[in-house]
Protein backbone atom coordinates (compact mmCIF):
# COMPACT_ATOMS: atom_id res chain seq x y z
CA UNK A 1 0.00 0.00 0.00
CA UNK A 2 1.37 3.34 -1.01
CA UNK A 3 -0.12 6.44 0.59
CA UNK A 4 0.68 10.05 1.45
CA UNK A 5 0.58 11.88 4.73
CA UNK A 6 -1.07 15.30 4.56
CA UNK A 7 2.09 17.21 5.38
CA UNK A 8 3.95 20.45 4.74
CA UNK A 9 3.73 21.48 1.10
CA UNK A 10 1.41 18.52 0.42
CA UNK A 11 4.48 16.89 -1.15
CA UNK A 12 3.38 13.33 -0.39
CA UNK A 13 0.00 13.91 -1.99
CA UNK A 14 1.52 15.52 -5.10
CA UNK A 15 3.93 12.60 -5.45
CA UNK A 16 1.03 10.15 -5.20
CA UNK A 17 -0.81 12.11 -7.90
CA UNK A 18 2.21 11.56 -10.16
CA UNK A 19 2.24 7.81 -9.43
CA UNK A 20 -1.49 7.38 -10.11
CA UNK A 21 -1.39 9.52 -13.23
CA UNK A 22 1.75 7.95 -14.75
CA UNK A 23 0.76 4.34 -14.07
CA UNK A 24 -2.82 5.06 -15.20
CA UNK A 25 -4.20 3.31 -12.14
CA UNK A 26 -7.81 2.26 -11.82
CA UNK A 27 -9.97 3.60 -9.03
CA UNK A 28 -11.38 0.71 -7.02
CA UNK A 29 -12.93 2.34 -3.98
CA UNK A 30 -12.92 5.09 -1.42
CA UNK A 31 -12.88 5.71 2.31
CA UNK A 32 -16.19 6.91 3.72
CA UNK A 33 -14.78 8.79 6.70
CA UNK A 34 -15.67 11.66 8.98
CA UNK A 35 -11.99 12.35 9.69
CA UNK A 36 -11.25 14.42 6.58
CA UNK A 37 -12.74 17.72 5.40
CA UNK A 38 -15.26 16.89 2.64
CA UNK A 39 -14.54 17.83 -0.96
CA UNK A 40 -15.66 16.67 -4.37
CA UNK A 41 -14.73 17.42 -7.93
CA UNK A 42 -14.50 15.78 -11.33
CA UNK A 43 -11.84 13.26 -12.30
CA UNK A 44 -8.42 14.81 -11.53
CA UNK A 45 -6.60 12.43 -13.87
CA UNK A 46 -8.85 13.06 -16.88
CA UNK A 47 -7.10 12.83 -20.20
CA UNK A 48 -10.06 13.45 -22.50
CA UNK A 49 -13.68 14.63 -22.53
CA UNK A 50 -14.96 11.08 -22.05
CA UNK A 51 -13.20 10.28 -18.79
CA UNK A 52 -13.49 13.71 -17.22
CA UNK A 53 -16.90 13.39 -15.63
CA UNK A 54 -16.27 10.81 -12.94
CA UNK A 55 -16.69 12.24 -9.46
CA UNK A 56 -13.73 12.19 -7.13
CA UNK A 57 -13.71 12.69 -3.36
CA UNK A 58 -11.25 13.19 -0.52
CA UNK A 59 -9.92 9.66 0.10
CA UNK A 60 -9.80 7.20 -2.78
CA UNK A 61 -8.09 3.89 -3.45
CA UNK A 62 -6.42 2.97 -6.75
CA UNK A 63 -5.04 -0.37 -7.92
CA UNK A 64 -2.43 -1.69 -10.34
CA UNK A 65 -2.54 -5.49 -10.37
CA UNK A 66 0.58 -5.88 -12.52
CA UNK A 67 2.72 -4.42 -9.76
CA UNK A 68 0.54 -5.62 -6.87
CA UNK A 69 0.24 -1.97 -5.92
CA UNK A 70 -2.61 -0.33 -4.06
CA UNK A 71 -2.51 3.43 -3.63
CA UNK A 72 -4.57 5.54 -1.27
CA UNK A 73 -4.82 9.23 -2.16
CA UNK A 74 -5.90 11.76 0.47
CA UNK A 75 -7.08 15.09 -0.86
CA UNK A 76 -8.10 17.20 2.13
CA UNK A 77 -6.83 18.09 5.60
CA UNK A 78 -7.77 16.24 8.74
CA UNK A 79 -10.51 17.49 11.02
CA UNK A 80 -9.34 18.44 14.50
CA UNK A 81 -8.98 15.50 16.91
CA UNK A 82 -9.44 12.98 14.12
CA UNK A 83 -5.80 11.94 13.53
CA UNK A 84 -5.96 9.00 15.90
CA UNK A 85 -9.32 7.56 14.76
CA UNK A 86 -8.17 7.73 11.14
CA UNK A 87 -4.84 6.04 11.84
CA UNK A 88 -6.55 3.31 13.79
CA UNK A 89 -9.11 2.70 11.06
CA UNK A 90 -6.41 2.72 8.38
CA UNK A 91 -4.09 0.32 10.19
CA UNK A 92 -6.89 -2.06 11.01
CA UNK A 93 -7.78 -2.07 7.30
CA UNK A 94 -4.14 -2.75 6.44
CA UNK A 95 -4.05 -5.72 8.82
CA UNK A 96 -7.48 -6.99 7.82
CA UNK A 97 -6.70 -6.92 4.11
CA UNK A 98 -3.36 -8.64 4.78
CA UNK A 99 -1.40 -5.98 3.04
CA UNK A 100 2.28 -6.96 2.93
CA UNK A 101 3.82 -3.57 3.49
CA UNK A 102 2.93 0.11 3.64
CA UNK A 103 4.96 2.99 2.23
CA UNK A 104 4.09 6.49 3.42
CA UNK A 105 5.27 9.54 1.47
CA UNK A 106 5.62 12.59 3.64
CA UNK A 107 7.53 15.79 4.31
CA UNK A 108 8.83 17.84 7.20
CA UNK A 109 9.47 21.52 7.80
CA UNK A 110 12.82 22.48 6.30
CA UNK A 111 13.33 25.29 8.81
CA UNK A 112 13.41 22.82 11.70
CA UNK A 113 16.56 21.08 10.48
CA UNK A 114 19.66 21.20 12.63
CA UNK A 115 23.09 22.22 11.31
CA UNK A 116 24.01 18.75 10.11
CA UNK A 117 20.73 18.19 8.32
CA UNK A 118 21.19 21.41 6.37
CA UNK A 119 24.01 19.76 4.46
CA UNK A 120 23.59 16.90 2.05
CA UNK A 121 20.40 15.27 0.84
CA UNK A 122 17.01 16.55 2.09
CA UNK A 123 15.53 13.06 1.74
CA UNK A 124 15.12 10.65 4.64
CA UNK A 125 13.63 7.25 5.30
CA UNK A 126 12.27 5.33 8.29
CA UNK A 127 11.57 1.61 8.60
CA UNK A 128 9.58 -0.23 11.24
CA UNK A 129 11.57 -3.05 12.88
CA UNK A 130 9.65 -5.68 10.90
CA UNK A 131 10.55 -4.06 7.59
CA UNK A 132 14.12 -3.31 8.68
CA UNK A 133 14.80 -7.04 8.70
CA UNK A 134 13.57 -7.37 5.12
CA UNK A 135 14.98 -4.31 3.36
CA UNK A 136 17.46 -2.69 5.73
CA UNK A 137 20.33 -3.95 3.62
CA UNK A 138 18.85 -2.49 0.44
CA UNK A 139 18.67 0.95 2.06
CA UNK A 140 22.39 0.70 2.83
CA UNK A 141 23.14 -0.15 -0.78
CA UNK A 142 21.07 2.75 -2.04
CA UNK A 143 23.03 4.98 0.32
CA UNK A 144 19.88 6.38 1.86
CA UNK A 145 19.89 8.42 5.06
CA UNK A 146 17.74 7.42 8.01
CA UNK A 147 15.73 10.15 9.73
CA UNK A 148 17.66 11.30 12.77
CA UNK A 149 16.15 11.30 16.22
CA UNK A 150 16.27 14.52 18.18
CA UNK A 151 16.74 15.18 21.87
CA UNK A 152 13.42 15.20 23.70
CA UNK A 153 14.50 18.40 25.47
CA UNK A 154 16.81 20.37 23.19
CA UNK A 155 19.62 22.10 25.02
CA UNK A 156 19.84 19.48 27.77
CA UNK A 157 22.51 17.02 26.79
CA UNK A 158 21.45 13.94 28.69
CA UNK A 159 17.91 13.35 27.50
CA UNK A 160 16.43 10.54 25.43
CA UNK A 161 16.30 10.83 21.70
CA UNK A 162 12.85 10.78 20.18
CA UNK A 163 11.42 10.79 16.70
CA UNK A 164 10.14 14.23 15.73
CA UNK A 165 8.60 14.99 12.36
CA UNK A 166 7.39 18.61 12.46
CA UNK A 167 4.88 19.37 9.73
CA UNK A 168 4.45 15.67 9.00
CA UNK A 169 0.80 15.40 9.91
CA UNK A 170 -0.12 11.80 10.75
CA UNK A 171 3.31 10.42 9.74
CA UNK A 172 4.73 9.99 13.23
CA UNK A 173 1.50 8.54 14.62
CA UNK A 174 1.20 6.05 11.75
CA UNK A 175 4.83 5.05 12.15
CA UNK A 176 4.78 4.56 15.91
CA UNK A 177 1.50 2.65 15.75
CA UNK A 178 2.88 0.42 12.99
CA UNK A 179 5.98 -0.32 15.05
CA UNK A 180 3.86 -1.47 17.95
CA UNK A 181 1.45 -3.48 15.76
CA UNK A 182 4.17 -5.29 13.85
CA UNK A 183 3.25 -3.77 10.51
CA UNK A 184 5.95 -3.49 7.85
CA UNK A 185 5.99 0.22 7.15
CA UNK A 186 8.44 2.56 5.45
CA UNK A 187 8.27 6.34 5.56
CA UNK A 188 9.98 8.35 2.84
CA UNK A 189 10.10 12.06 3.50
CA UNK A 190 11.65 15.25 2.20
CA UNK A 191 12.51 18.42 4.05
CA UNK A 192 10.73 21.31 2.39
CA UNK A 193 8.78 24.52 2.89
CA UNK A 194 5.42 25.72 1.62
CA UNK A 195 5.48 27.20 -1.85
CA UNK A 196 5.50 25.68 -5.30
CA UNK A 197 6.09 22.12 -4.20
CA UNK A 198 5.96 20.49 -7.61
CA UNK A 199 9.77 20.11 -7.79
CA UNK A 200 9.72 18.60 -4.27
CA UNK A 201 7.12 16.10 -5.44
CA UNK A 202 9.32 15.05 -8.36
CA UNK A 203 12.33 14.62 -6.06
CA UNK A 204 10.29 12.50 -3.63
CA UNK A 205 8.73 10.31 -6.31
CA UNK A 206 12.15 9.68 -7.90
CA UNK A 207 13.46 8.73 -4.44
CA UNK A 208 10.58 6.25 -4.13
CA UNK A 209 11.36 4.95 -7.61
CA UNK A 210 14.97 4.16 -6.67
CA UNK A 211 13.56 1.53 -4.34
CA UNK A 212 10.29 0.35 -5.88
CA UNK A 213 11.27 0.76 -9.57
CA UNK A 214 7.71 1.67 -10.59
CA UNK A 215 8.84 3.25 -13.84
CA UNK A 216 12.06 3.00 -15.79
CA UNK A 217 14.51 5.56 -14.47
CA UNK A 218 15.73 7.99 -17.08
CA UNK A 219 18.50 10.51 -17.15
CA UNK A 220 16.11 13.46 -17.24
CA UNK A 221 14.47 12.76 -13.93
CA UNK A 222 11.10 14.40 -14.48
CA UNK A 223 10.19 13.24 -17.95
CA UNK A 224 9.06 9.75 -17.00
CA UNK A 225 6.23 11.06 -14.78
CA UNK A 226 2.92 12.25 -16.21
CA UNK A 227 1.49 15.41 -14.68
CA UNK A 228 -2.26 15.07 -14.02
CA UNK A 229 -4.65 17.55 -15.64
CA UNK A 230 -5.80 18.74 -12.21
CA UNK A 231 -2.42 20.40 -11.64
CA UNK A 232 -3.38 23.19 -14.03
CA UNK A 233 -3.93 26.59 -12.50
CA UNK A 234 -2.42 25.54 -9.18
CA UNK A 235 -1.89 29.16 -8.28
CA UNK A 236 -5.19 30.62 -9.42
CA UNK A 237 -6.84 31.91 -12.55
CA UNK A 238 -5.37 33.99 -15.33
CA UNK A 239 -4.50 37.61 -14.61
CA UNK A 240 -6.81 40.45 -15.59
CA UNK A 241 -5.26 42.32 -18.54
CA UNK A 242 -6.17 45.60 -16.89
CA UNK A 243 -3.49 44.87 -14.29
CA UNK A 244 -0.82 45.92 -16.75
Amino acid sequence: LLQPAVSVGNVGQLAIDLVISTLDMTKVGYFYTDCLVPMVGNNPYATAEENSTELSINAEVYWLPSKKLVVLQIRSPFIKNKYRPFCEALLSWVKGSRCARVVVLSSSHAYQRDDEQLLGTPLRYLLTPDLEKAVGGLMQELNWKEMEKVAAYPGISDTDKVLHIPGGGITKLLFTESCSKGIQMAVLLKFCSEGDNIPDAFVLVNYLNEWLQLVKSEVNSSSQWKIPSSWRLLFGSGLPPALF
Partner: protein
Amino acid sequence: MATFFGEVVVAPSRAGLDEEEEAQDESPEDSEIRRELQAKRAVQIQWSAAEPSGCSRLVVAIGRNAAAFLSSFILDSVCWEVVGVVKLWNEWCRTSSTTNILPTDSFCLFYRLISDPTVLLCQCSCYVAEDQQFQWLEKVFGCMQKEGLQVTILSTCPVADYKTQESTLTLASPFLKALKTKEFQEQVCCPLLEQPNIVRDLPAA
Protein backbone atom coordinates in the same frame (compact mmCIF):
# COMPACT_ATOMS: atom_id res chain seq x y z
CA MET B 1 10.50 30.11 11.60
CA ALA B 2 12.10 33.23 13.08
CA THR B 3 10.33 36.56 12.68
CA PHE B 4 11.79 40.06 12.59
CA PHE B 5 11.77 40.35 16.35
CA GLY B 6 13.53 37.06 16.88
CA GLU B 7 10.73 34.97 18.30
CA VAL B 8 10.10 31.61 16.67
CA VAL B 9 6.63 30.95 15.30
CA VAL B 10 5.20 27.89 13.65
CA ALA B 11 4.98 28.37 9.89
CA PRO B 12 1.43 28.13 8.56
CA SER B 13 1.02 25.06 6.43
CA ARG B 14 -1.57 23.85 3.94
CA ALA B 15 -1.29 20.53 5.66
CA GLY B 16 -2.97 21.80 8.78
CA LEU B 17 -1.75 21.88 12.35
CA ASP B 18 0.41 19.18 13.90
CA GLU B 19 -1.75 17.29 16.31
CA GLU B 20 0.86 15.21 18.10
CA GLU B 21 1.33 17.58 20.99
CA GLU B 22 -2.37 17.96 21.63
CA ALA B 23 -3.17 14.28 21.75
CA GLN B 24 -0.93 13.42 24.66
CA ASP B 25 -1.33 14.28 28.34
CA GLU B 26 -4.99 15.12 28.46
CA SER B 27 -6.11 15.60 32.04
CA PRO B 28 -9.55 14.39 33.17
CA GLU B 29 -10.76 17.99 33.25
CA ASP B 30 -9.61 18.51 29.65
CA SER B 31 -11.36 15.32 28.55
CA GLU B 32 -14.50 16.46 30.32
CA ILE B 33 -14.37 19.87 28.64
CA ARG B 34 -13.77 18.28 25.25
CA ARG B 35 -16.71 15.94 25.74
CA GLU B 36 -19.00 18.79 26.78
CA LEU B 37 -17.92 20.80 23.77
CA GLN B 38 -18.58 17.86 21.48
CA ALA B 39 -22.04 17.45 23.00
CA LYS B 40 -22.74 21.14 22.48
CA ARG B 41 -21.72 20.84 18.84
CA ALA B 42 -23.98 17.87 18.24
CA VAL B 43 -26.41 18.28 15.37
CA GLN B 44 -30.06 17.66 16.29
CA ILE B 45 -32.88 17.12 13.89
CA GLN B 46 -36.56 17.32 14.82
CA TRP B 47 -39.34 16.14 12.56
CA SER B 48 -42.81 17.57 13.20
CA ALA B 49 -44.55 14.33 12.31
CA ALA B 50 -43.04 10.97 11.42
CA GLU B 51 -39.63 10.75 9.79
CA PRO B 52 -39.81 11.10 6.00
CA SER B 53 -39.19 7.55 4.91
CA GLY B 54 -40.83 7.64 1.50
CA CYS B 55 -38.94 10.49 -0.09
CA SER B 56 -38.47 10.45 -3.87
CA ARG B 57 -36.94 13.87 -4.44
CA LEU B 58 -34.88 15.98 -2.10
CA VAL B 59 -33.66 19.47 -2.98
CA VAL B 60 -31.10 20.91 -0.57
CA ALA B 61 -30.24 24.62 -0.73
CA ILE B 62 -27.05 25.40 1.16
CA GLY B 63 -25.99 28.93 1.96
CA ARG B 64 -27.89 32.19 2.10
CA ASN B 65 -28.05 32.73 -1.67
CA ALA B 66 -29.43 29.29 -2.44
CA ALA B 67 -31.86 29.52 0.49
CA ALA B 68 -33.04 32.92 -0.74
CA PHE B 69 -33.55 31.47 -4.23
CA LEU B 70 -35.89 28.85 -2.79
CA SER B 71 -37.72 31.45 -0.69
CA SER B 72 -38.21 33.78 -3.64
CA PHE B 73 -39.14 31.35 -6.40
CA ILE B 74 -40.34 28.08 -4.94
CA LEU B 75 -41.57 28.23 -1.37
CA ASP B 76 -44.90 29.59 -0.30
CA SER B 77 -47.17 28.82 2.62
CA VAL B 78 -49.94 27.40 0.40
CA CYS B 79 -48.09 24.56 -1.30
CA TRP B 80 -45.35 23.79 1.23
CA GLU B 81 -45.41 22.91 4.92
CA VAL B 82 -42.55 22.80 7.41
CA VAL B 83 -41.89 19.24 8.51
CA GLY B 84 -38.50 19.36 10.15
CA VAL B 85 -35.82 21.58 11.65
CA VAL B 86 -32.11 21.12 12.34
CA LYS B 87 -30.65 22.71 15.44
CA LEU B 88 -26.94 23.21 15.77
CA TRP B 89 -24.37 25.54 17.28
CA ASN B 90 -20.81 26.40 16.30
CA GLU B 91 -18.48 29.37 16.61
CA TRP B 92 -19.96 30.99 13.54
CA CYS B 93 -23.65 30.64 14.10
CA ARG B 94 -26.49 29.29 16.16
CA THR B 95 -29.66 28.22 14.43
CA SER B 96 -32.63 30.37 15.21
CA SER B 97 -35.19 28.78 17.49
CA THR B 98 -38.11 31.07 16.74
CA THR B 99 -40.91 29.99 14.45
CA ASN B 100 -41.06 33.25 12.52
CA ILE B 101 -37.79 33.02 10.64
CA LEU B 102 -36.32 36.22 9.25
CA PRO B 103 -34.18 36.04 6.10
CA THR B 104 -31.17 37.23 8.08
CA ASP B 105 -31.42 34.44 10.66
CA SER B 106 -29.41 31.24 10.48
CA PHE B 107 -31.72 28.30 10.05
CA CYS B 108 -32.07 24.86 8.55
CA LEU B 109 -35.64 23.81 7.75
CA PHE B 110 -37.30 20.98 5.86
CA TYR B 111 -40.43 21.56 3.79
CA ARG B 112 -42.76 19.06 2.17
CA LEU B 113 -44.88 19.62 -0.91
CA ILE B 114 -48.46 19.22 0.28
CA SER B 115 -49.71 17.89 -3.06
CA ASP B 116 -46.87 15.31 -3.28
CA PRO B 117 -45.49 14.40 0.15
CA THR B 118 -42.57 12.51 -1.35
CA VAL B 119 -40.94 15.79 -2.41
CA LEU B 120 -38.84 17.47 0.24
CA LEU B 121 -36.94 20.76 0.27
CA CYS B 122 -34.21 21.69 2.69
CA GLN B 123 -33.19 25.31 3.22
CA CYS B 124 -29.92 25.52 5.09
CA SER B 125 -28.66 29.07 5.59
CA CYS B 126 -26.59 28.34 8.69
CA TYR B 127 -22.92 27.49 8.44
CA VAL B 128 -22.28 23.83 9.24
CA ALA B 129 -18.73 23.46 10.62
CA GLU B 130 -16.27 20.82 9.35
CA ASP B 131 -16.77 18.47 12.24
CA GLN B 132 -20.57 18.77 12.03
CA GLN B 133 -20.93 18.11 8.31
CA PHE B 134 -20.70 14.35 8.60
CA GLN B 135 -23.14 14.34 11.52
CA TRP B 136 -25.61 16.48 9.53
CA LEU B 137 -25.32 14.09 6.64
CA GLU B 138 -25.89 10.97 8.72
CA LYS B 139 -28.83 12.47 10.62
CA VAL B 140 -30.62 13.76 7.54
CA PHE B 141 -30.02 10.84 5.18
CA GLY B 142 -30.11 8.26 7.92
CA CYS B 143 -33.88 8.37 8.08
CA MET B 144 -34.47 8.33 4.32
CA GLN B 145 -34.55 5.37 2.01
CA LYS B 146 -31.82 5.60 -0.62
CA GLU B 147 -33.58 3.54 -3.31
CA GLY B 148 -35.24 5.70 -5.92
CA LEU B 149 -34.17 8.90 -4.18
CA GLN B 150 -33.04 11.79 -6.36
CA VAL B 151 -31.06 14.50 -4.58
CA THR B 152 -30.34 17.95 -6.00
CA ILE B 153 -27.98 20.26 -4.15
CA LEU B 154 -28.02 24.00 -4.78
CA SER B 155 -25.14 26.09 -3.60
CA THR B 156 -23.08 29.16 -4.44
CA CYS B 157 -19.37 29.89 -4.54
CA PRO B 158 -17.54 33.17 -5.10
CA VAL B 159 -16.47 33.73 -8.72
CA ALA B 160 -13.02 34.62 -7.40
CA ASP B 161 -12.61 30.98 -6.34
CA TYR B 162 -13.22 29.72 -9.87
CA LYS B 163 -10.05 28.68 -11.64
CA THR B 164 -9.85 29.27 -15.31
CA GLN B 165 -7.31 30.15 -17.99
CA GLU B 166 -8.51 33.74 -18.39
CA SER B 167 -9.02 36.15 -15.57
CA THR B 168 -12.27 35.78 -13.65
CA LEU B 169 -12.96 39.48 -14.27
CA THR B 170 -13.78 38.77 -17.90
CA LEU B 171 -16.25 36.01 -17.11
CA ALA B 172 -19.95 36.72 -17.48
CA SER B 173 -21.09 36.02 -13.96
CA PRO B 174 -23.14 34.63 -12.37
CA PHE B 175 -22.85 31.28 -14.15
CA LEU B 176 -23.93 27.74 -13.38
CA LYS B 177 -21.79 24.61 -13.15
CA ALA B 178 -22.76 21.13 -12.12
CA LEU B 179 -21.36 17.93 -10.68
CA LYS B 180 -23.30 14.71 -11.00
CA THR B 181 -22.95 11.09 -9.97
CA LYS B 182 -22.83 8.22 -12.49
CA GLU B 183 -26.33 7.21 -11.40
CA PHE B 184 -27.86 10.52 -12.46
CA GLN B 185 -29.06 9.80 -15.97
CA GLU B 186 -31.13 12.89 -16.76
CA GLN B 187 -29.92 15.88 -18.74
CA VAL B 188 -28.06 18.48 -16.73
CA CYS B 189 -29.09 22.04 -17.52
CA CYS B 190 -25.59 23.52 -17.45
CA PRO B 191 -21.97 22.58 -18.18
CA LEU B 192 -20.11 20.32 -15.77
CA LEU B 193 -17.53 21.73 -13.42
CA GLU B 194 -14.12 21.54 -15.03
CA GLN B 195 -10.92 20.50 -13.36
CA PRO B 196 -9.16 21.84 -11.31
CA ASN B 197 -12.18 23.32 -9.57
CA ILE B 198 -13.63 21.57 -6.53
CA VAL B 199 -16.56 21.89 -4.17
CA ARG B 200 -16.08 22.04 -0.41
CA ASP B 201 -17.97 21.87 2.89
CA LEU B 202 -21.54 20.71 3.23
CA PRO B 203 -22.39 20.54 -0.48
CA ALA B 204 -19.35 18.27 -0.92
CA ALA B 205 -20.30 16.10 2.02
